């Protein structure tokens, strides 16, 4: 099936990039209007935002499906040379690097808040006058359970569900590694059960995170609106959660491709890309667990 060619494959013209741009445009226009119409922070009398956003999302799913369908056909049609394979692999690694930098912005914000903002608001160093004049009652602490303006919340502990979730995610990385070794060894049955286990663990993790959010909102009073701690907690774990969902979908797709007997002949870029992505999500979680939940 996958006879490798030697010349570099330059695809013929394709409609998916243009249609993908249309999809992103619809998501941006629809999303912007939907946010304005549903949060009522600025005036927006319309009502179409949600519908345009939904069309945009469905449109993008369709484009992604068709685009990847083309590349999978090319891959099993033997149009990908080793050089092409390297292009995809390097492209994926740089994409993951860009994701690392995206999380870096939030980690940077968290450390800046913990090490500089909060001590300054508490009156340290250059913050003495700010503290004295604006919020003389504010106590520097981390997590900030009482914000300068008096909002209070409870902090999320580390040793209950978050620790169990850490174990779940680490285990999923182990099962994925087992699957990876089996893939290279050509043991399809082992790939399927180990990857299947990874996917199940991924879904459990997402479920536990969802429950944790409910717990935070309902029992702890920890919300997006409870000051800098809540802001950082929900955006950091939230973006991680979105990446977990994307990684899970990626693993599910390659699981079905293994079911269809793809990837077993060394032509396994997509499978390994999904695995790299999953390990990346796992490493981000470790940093999150240590800095957001624990310390």
């Amino acid at each position: 099936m996958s006879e490798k060619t030697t010349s570099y494959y330059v695809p013929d013209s394709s409609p998916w990039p243009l249609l993908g741009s249309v999809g992103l445009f619809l998501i941006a226009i629809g999303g912007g209007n939907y946010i304005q119409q549903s949060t009522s922070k600025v005036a927006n009398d319309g009502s179409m935002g949600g519908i345009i956003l939904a069309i945009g999302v469905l449109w993008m799913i369709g484009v992604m499906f068709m685009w990847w369908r083309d590349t999978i056909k090319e891959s099993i049609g033997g149009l990908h040379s080793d050089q092409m394979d390297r292009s995809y692999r390097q492209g994926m690694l740089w994409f993951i690097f860009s994701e690392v930098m995206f999380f870096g912005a939030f980690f940077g914000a968290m450390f800046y808040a913990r090490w500089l903002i909060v001590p300054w608001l508490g009156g340290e160093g250059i913050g003495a006058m700010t503290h004295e004049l604006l919020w003389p009652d504010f106590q520097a602490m981390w997590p900030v359970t009482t914000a300068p303006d008096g909002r209070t919340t409870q902090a999320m502990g580390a040793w209950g569900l978050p620790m169990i979730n850490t174990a779940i995610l680490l285990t999923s990385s182990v099962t994925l590694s087992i699957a990876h070794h089996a893939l290279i060894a050509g043991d399809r049955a082992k790939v399927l059960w180990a990857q299947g286990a990874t996917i199940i663990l991924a879904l459990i993790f997402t479920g536990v995170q969802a429950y944790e959010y409910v717990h935070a909102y309902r029992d702890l009073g920890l919300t997006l609106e409870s000051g800098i701690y809540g802001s950082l907690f929900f955006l950091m774990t939230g973006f991680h959660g979105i990446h977990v969902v994307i990684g899970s979908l990626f693993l599910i797709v390659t699981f079905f491709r293994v079911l269809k007997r793809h990837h077993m002949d060394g032509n396994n870029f997509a499978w390994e890309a999904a695995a790299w992505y999953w390990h990346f999500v796992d490493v981000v979680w470790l940093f999150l667990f240590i800095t957001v939940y624990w310390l």
Partner: protein
Amino acid sequence: MADHHEHHAPTGWRRWLLSTNHKDIGSLYLWFSFAMFLVGGLLAMVIRAELMYPGMQVVDPDFFNQMTTTHGLIMVFGAVMPAFVGLANWMIPLMIGAPDMALPRMNNWSFWILPAAFSILIGSVLMSAFGPGNPPAPNFGWTFYAPLSTTYGPASTDFFILSVHLMGISSIMGAINVIVTVMNMRAPGMTMMKMPLFVWTWLITAFLLIAVMPVLAGAVTMMLTDRHFGTSFFDAAGGGDPVLFQHIFWFFGHPEVYIMILPAFGVVSAIIPTFARKPLFGYASMVYATASIALLSFVVWAHHMFTVGMPLAGMLFFMYMTMLISVPTGVKVFNWVATMWRGSLTFELPMKWALAFVILFTIGGLSGLMLSITPADFQYHDSYFVVAHFHYVLVSGAIFSMFAAVYYWLPKWSGVMYDKFWGEVHFWSSLISVNLLFFPMHFVGLAGMPRRYSDYALQFADYNWWISIGAFWFGISQLFLLWVLIKACFLKKGEKATDEVWEGAEGLEWTVPSPAPFHTFDTPPVVK
């Protein structure tokens, strides 16, 4: 082998909309950026019309703020960055002997996201300008500091945020494509240290893009949640800090500045050796200097915010790191001058632009050195001196290098020589007017005229009148370039270009016919 592919070459709208060809996508990028250059320029004309005389004449202050904001955003993200990506698309595969960019479909996606992003941004300007009662376009300055953009941002801010997300997606995909192409698609024998310097500078630029565009995405995402979902990133009452926004923004923003100038260094390093008929002096040191500038760009960001209040140790660190950048930059200027030393110089238009770049960019670099001195910066901060500084490095730096590149490679792209008369008119007219436009800004800035105001004190009136004359003159001068481009690209009028085009030119791009055929290097050339 070119004939073999000829019947595959798509025609009509499919060729441009569904392209997977690096040359066509490069042309799309270049024309898009030129269009944005004219739109952004038009907004600058509104700014200068208002500032020509003291008092309020043309627009109201809020609309003036929208003009400064969107002029900056459109020029940075719409004109300069896509121009260099277009150049990378066209030239990198030709320079390294590759059949195309590594990921041709993603290449087209990177491009077509830009019209989507900019129709949103420009749409908000048009709605504000022509729809009475509509909310203003973004009006908080191109740096969109919180809380101007969060608590006080108009309704258009949310669409601006999403268009920045789109621009970021486009830039990241474009940059990944460049890196993968350079790392993986070089012809046999094209080792890293044999690559033309333009390829090197773009490789490093692409690394910077992948490193900082996601940080910008993070910053605007925090803005969005602060605006609508009650988070407190930039709100001190909740334990956040508006200054946090400035830190995150400039952690993106300073590497961004080098994203806009490193490819310019590459262009000039290609052109000067050709017209000096000597190899580039200090090639290896140029590579290392570029890498040093890129690495230092990550640890200088707070020099944009010396006056905001930060510990003394922080100010000293950022001051010294910033000054350190002048070392590798000085290496570059020295190498360009040394390349010309005792060369057989001729002064065709690309060389004229490149020389203007070296001199005027150095002026901008020196005013940058002045700004890096923390105590002095307390005086210069947010004055027209800053405006003069960054327009010298961006207009007579980045954009002049783009003009140099266009005149240098236009014969290769279009197959005909540019119109020399109108090209000369464009050059001299731009050169004189750009200095009339930006040089007096140093004086009014040092005398205390603040930037971003729609009015000014009477003592600045004379200079501002001359600045505005320079601005209109510079704006009109660009129409000469439009004519030169139309004549070469669409009318195909002009002297037929040879393959080599320039007598002293070296590099793989000069071994293919002019105009470059639709497919080049299907079989990789062997580099000695």
